[in-house]
Structure formats: structure tokens, C-alpha cells
């Protein structure tokens, strides 16, 4: 019985002409990402699992207990569920201090003022927020507010953690840095974790398993590699098309799954490598001149998208490549055919992970 101690949800809910059908199973200690565009039903899923919205059909179970089952007439209201939520925009209470925000859940569940202060203090310390205990949320940076929101959700020791776009309120430069911090904090929570995001990088880096949601249904589910290498819809293909890898850098080279790539700048340690599909060129013969990254591979898949053609290349480093229809004809490309791949070092995006 996989997930008996985790989350088991299989439900549908209708709302103002919109319908969300979701089937999710998350065992303890595992992070599942719900990845999809805006309006796909991600926030509805958060509301359903946290109890702010009742389902129309199906069943939601957490740690073996039924939270919502309209067929059996069961509905556990949000205040009686043990679900911690980090909301989009964090929703910290602006009239309460950081400490009072974190202690809110404990106080609401009947803990005394003294004990809840002590417990909140422990979490503030763990999150490195002790100095900010007396501040009001309006005086915090985006990253600090995120940690307060996480502490507030975790202090009550929930059985499920929901994170709704936990990084989208931050600017790009802090996002990279905080993603790493978030990953570490998530490790501390031993229950099932559901990450809601529209950002594939976030999903690929933070989640063990990705469920892609489009128009209220899951269109594809699997590991980051499954999604990346075998996209089943245009949306997933576009997401996956960014050729995203975790790699380790040394000097002006990165090691991607055992394959060496030359890059333009000096980097050291774990990095995130991105290669735009249109920045990769294909050749019949070994290319001469500037590209320092070139290797022989086979075409595994050809997909026609109007003017553009999307190809999937095989080992040693599977990539998504985008070229024009005329280039396909010129190179007489077909599935299974051998081809040279070339990428300029300057076209490889590298950022510290």
C-alpha cells in the first residue's frame, strides 16, 4: 500500500465553468511538483487539499484518515486538517510580528502563550530569523518573508506540506539563492510535500516527481528526465525544450551526466546548465571552426511544429534541438539517422545552483 502514510488524492471539483481532475499519491519524504501554466488549476488544488474548497467527487486521504469524501459524507474543515501551507505571496498577517505569525498556528490549536512563544522561537532560530522576531512582515525582504511563511506552516508539525509558488514573489537574483535554501528546509520536513509551480527549473530542482497540469487535468507525470526527454504535449515540450541539466563545473568546463561541455566562463561546483534548442546546430560532417562542443549522435525523434521542427538527439547527451523545416530537408534528416551536434561555448547558460 504505497502512500498509506502519505497523501492519496483522487478527486474532481467544478468551479464556475472550470473543472479540476487530480490523482495524486505522495509518500512521506517525497516532493511532488504540480507544474503548469497560470489558470491550469494549481491554486484550486491547494485550496482543495487544505480544505478551503470541498470536492464534488472522489476522495482525499492523508496518513490513512479521510479528509474529504462526498460519497461518504465526510469533510474535514481546514482548521481540523493537519496541512501546512506556504501560500503564494506568503499571506503573512501584517498586524502581527514575525514571532506572532509563527506562533499563530500553535495559539489557534490551544497552546498557551508561553509554550507557543518558546516553540515559535525554536523555529525562528532554525530558520535564522531570531533577530527578526519583533519585526512586522512589512519590514521583511522577500526571502525573509518566505522563511517566516515556511516556519509558520511547519511549526504545527503538519502531515502534509503544500507550497504554492514559493519563489514567484522574489526577484530573479534572489530566487536562485533561495531555491537552494528552500531545498534544504524541505529536507527537514519528513511528510509528503507538494510544490505548486509554473517554473520548470523550480520543479526539476526541488521535486522528485513532476505532474504536469493543463486545463484542470494531469497531462503527464514522471521524473524530471521522463518529462524532459519524452514530452507528451506541446506545453511540456516547450517547457522541456529548454535543455536543463544539473552539472558540476570546473574551470571552463561542465560535466553533464559524464559528458564534458566547454563553457565560456569560469565556474566551480554545482551549476545549472541550460541550452536553448535553437542554439544547437546540426551537421552532416564534423563541423570545423569555432564550436568546441561537437559530437556524433543519432536522431531519435522528429516532431513538426509548423515552421519549426523539434528533434530529439540520442546519447551521449540527449538534447532537444529546434531547427527550420528547410534545414531538415537540406540535411535530409530522418529518425535513426546519424548527425553531428555542435554548440558554441557562449551559447551554454550556466548559473550556480
Amino acid at each position: 500500500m504505497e502512500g498509506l502514510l502519505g497523501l492519496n488524492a483522487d478527486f474532481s471539483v467544478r468551479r464556475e465553468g472550470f473543472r479540476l481532475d487530480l490523482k495524486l499519491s505522495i509518500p512521506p519524504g517525497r516532493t511532488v511538483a504540480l507544474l503548469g501554466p497560470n489558470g491550469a488549476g494549481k491554486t484550486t488544488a491547494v485550496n482543495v487539499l487544505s480544505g478551503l474548497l470541498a470536492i464534488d467527487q472522489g476522495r482525499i486521504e492523508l496518513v490513512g484518515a479521510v479528509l474529504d469524501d462526498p460519497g461518504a459524507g465526510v469533510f474535514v474543515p481546514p482548521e481540523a486538517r493537519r496541512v501546512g501551507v506556504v501560500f503564494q505571496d506568503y499571506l503573512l498577517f501584517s498586524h502581527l510580528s514575525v514571532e506572532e505569525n509563527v506562533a499563530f498556528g500553535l495559539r489557534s490549536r490551544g497552546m498557551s502563550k508561553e509554550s507557543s512563544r518558546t516553540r515559535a522561537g525554536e523555529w525562528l532560530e532554525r530558520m535564522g530569523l531570531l533577530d527578526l522576531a519583533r519585526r512586522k512582515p512589512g519590514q521583511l525582504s522577500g526571502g525573509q518573508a518566505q522563511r517566516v511563511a515556511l516556519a509558520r506552516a511547519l511549526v504545527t508539525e503538519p502531515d502534509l506540506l503544500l507550497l504554492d509558488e514559493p519563489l514567484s514573489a522574489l526577484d530573479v537574483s534572489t530566487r536562485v539563492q533561495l531555491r537552494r535554501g528552500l531545498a534544504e528546509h524541505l529536507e527537514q520536513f519528513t511528510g509528503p510535500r507538494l510544490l505548486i509551480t509554473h517554473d520548470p527549473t523550480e520543479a526539476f530542482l526541488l521535486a522528485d516527481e513532476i505532474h504536469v497540469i493543463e486545463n484542470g487535468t494531469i497531462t503527464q507525470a514522471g521524473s524530471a528526465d521522463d518529462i524532459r526527454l519524452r514530452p507528451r504535449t506541446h506545453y511540456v515540450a516547450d517547457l522541456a525544450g529548454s535543455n536543463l541539466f544539473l552539472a558540476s563545473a570546473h574551470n571552463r568546463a561542465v560535466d553533464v551526466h559524464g559528458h564534458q561541455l566547454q563553457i565560456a566562463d569560469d565556474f566551480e561546483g554545482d551549476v545549472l546548465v541550460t541550452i536553448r534548442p535553437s542554439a544547437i546546430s546540426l551537421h552532416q560532417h564534423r563541423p570545423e571552426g569555432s564550436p568546441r562542443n561537437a559530437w556524433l549522435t543519432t536522431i531519435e525523434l522528429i516532431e513538426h511544429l509548423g515552421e519549426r521542427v523539434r528533434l530529439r538527439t540520442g546519447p551521449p547527451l540527449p538534447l532537444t534541438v529546434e531547427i527550420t523545416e528547410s534545414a531538415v530537408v537540406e540535411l535530409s534528416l530522418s529518425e535513426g539517422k546519424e548527425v553531428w551536434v555542435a554548440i558554441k561555448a557562449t551559447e551554454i547558460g550556466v548559473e550556480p545552483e
Partner: protein
Amino acid sequence: MKPARGTGGPPVLLIILGISGLAVFALPLAGLLARTPWAKLGSLLTGDVVTDALGLSLLTSLAATAIAAIIGVPLAWLLARVDFPGRTIARGLVTLPLVLPPVVGGAALLFAFGRRGLFGQPLNEATGLLLPFSVWGVILANTFVAAPFLVITVEGALRNLDQRYEGAAATLGASRWTLLRRVTLPMIGPSLVAGLVLTWARALGEFGATITFAGNLQGRTQTLPLAVFVALESDRDAAIALSLVMVAVSLTVLVALRERWWKGF
């Protein structure tokens, strides 16, 4: 404030009209102050009529504000959050006392809660309580006329409040009541205070509904505005002294609260 270079000062017409506007509010006050018998003021202010009226006015206006808070906040919540049939009509009923002449309100109160009134008669027979010409009558009249300010302000604030905060509180284990007490009310705090101040100010100045429904009995139902009205006929100096008391009380409270609580209002 210095105008920015190149934009010129504010238009002359605007200045003239603006200053005229200020004059409308300032000139009556100047007239009052010019006629004030400063030398006699001490003895005038300690007279029975003044102290009775002041005490009664404070008591009844504060009581009306308290009642408005107790029944007005729940009403505002219902109007803002519950989609019940006839909500538009209910909202209209709440707004009515704002536009109705207070005398008409007083008359309506008399027909409803008077000795022979629709509800007054059974109430009187059951409990012996008689609202007209009593302190309770003054409080009821004040509440009827002033409470709409609170209801409308709080309803607006509740409608503008991002309800996701209440959802967040619920996921943290807050019961409906805890959520209202610790999240909703504090978050609409500034509007609530503004509504209470407006209600209190309106109740303090109430005249028409009070005199129609509760009469004008010194020490029982004669509030400051009624005492001023009576004194204008008999003792002009006393009327001025009473008026000054009202100006002083209102101005102090409004200025003090404006600084502290309702800057944004």
C-alpha cells in the same frame, strides 16, 4: 509646498474657490468665538443645564456607538459575506437613515416604539419599559441615525479585505471565531475605528430624531444640541457656552484620532 519649476503655481481660480470653501467652515466658528462671553464662561459652564446636557450627551453617544459596534459589525459582515435574498434591500435599509430627515426618523421610531407603537405597546405591556422620553429613547434615536456610518464603513472594508488571509488562518487551525477575532477584525482595524468615530460624532450631534422621539427633558433626554437650541431662545450666552463645549469635544477627539488612527481615511 513649493511648486515645481516650470509648472507654475496652482491655478488662481482653484485658489479662490478653495479658500471660499474653507471660509464656509471657518466663518461660523469665528462668529461663535467672537460672541463668546469669555469672562462669564467659567460660571456658565458649571451650570446645571450644561453639566446635565454634557453628561447625557457623552453617555448616550457612547452607548449608541457601543450598540452600533455590537450589532453593526455582524450586520456589516452579513452584508459583505453572505449572499442572502434581499441583500440589496437590506443594504438600502441601512443607508436610509443617512438621507432621511432625522425628524422623519424620530417620527418613525415613535410609531414603532411609542407607547401605542407597533412594537412599543407589546414591549410596554410585557416589561413595563417605555422608550420615548427616556434615556433609552435617546440612545435608540442616536443608534438609528448614527449606526449606518459604522455598518457602511465596515462593510466596505470587509469587501476589500483579501479573504485569502482568512483561509491562511483557517489552515493554521483557527476556528471561525478565532479567525474573526485575530485576523479579520485587526486587519480591518483602521476602517473599524473610522466607522466608530464617525458614528460617535454623528450621535453626539443628533438633534431631530432625539427631540421627536425622546423629547427635551433636562437631565433626562436633553442632550447638548437640544440644550443649545433651547438656550438660544432664553439665554444666548449659555447657548454659546454649550456650543463651545461641543466644538471643543468634537475637535479634540477628531484631531487626536485622525493623527493616530485614520490617517488614510
